[in-house]
């Protein structure tokens, strides 16, 4: 992973929509979870049709305004179905 990137993991239907399990995304100062999600949707239009997606940062659900910095692990989490 580039030291100016965060790592993004895709799970379940989001993996199929993104066509991959993992990607590194460059970060810039001031980048938020919301910004990152818009960038991902712009790059992978199939992500736009997913409903109920939440993003997690470093294994915790994140809020839209949470900052994203280099080396953060971000996960794209569509509605879960465990149990």
């Amino acid at each position, binding site marked *: 992973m580039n030291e100016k990137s965060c790592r993004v993991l895709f799970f379940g239907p989001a993996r199929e929509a993104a066509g991959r399990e993992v990607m590194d995304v460059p970060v810039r100062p001031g980048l938020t979870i919301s910004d990152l999600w818009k960038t991902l949707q712009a790059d992978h239009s199939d992500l736009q049709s997913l409903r109920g997606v939440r993003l997690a940062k470093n294994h*915790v659900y994140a809020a839209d305004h949470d900052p994203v910095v280099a080396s953060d692990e971000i996960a794209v989490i569509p509605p879960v179905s*465990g149990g």
Partner: protein
Amino acid sequence: MTTEVQIQAAPITVPPATGDPGAGAVVTFEGVVRGMENGQPIRALHYEAYEPMAEREMERIAGEIAMEHAVRRMAVIHRIGEVPVGEASIAVRVEAAHRAEAFGFLTTFMDRLKRDVPIWKREVR
């Protein structure tokens, strides 16, 4: 409260209760793969987990629920990979002083798990 959380590919064996003399109620829930899903026969369910977060979420949820439903000990095992029909995909055991606390904890835990723990299933036909 003691919390034990495990995600494993191996079949689930429910461990015996601890014999804690303060635990008057031991309740175990096993979620078993059914032969029909959405009206169609299936062979198995395949489960995938974001493991480190799934473990952390289960621990967090257990801790939160314990503030309302006091229990002495809880253990959860969630299976991943292919789980054939008739086998358990999850087992949760709760030990509490009284049964109301154990049932309250367990039903709330399952509701929260199904909402928040990053695990996904798909049907195997």
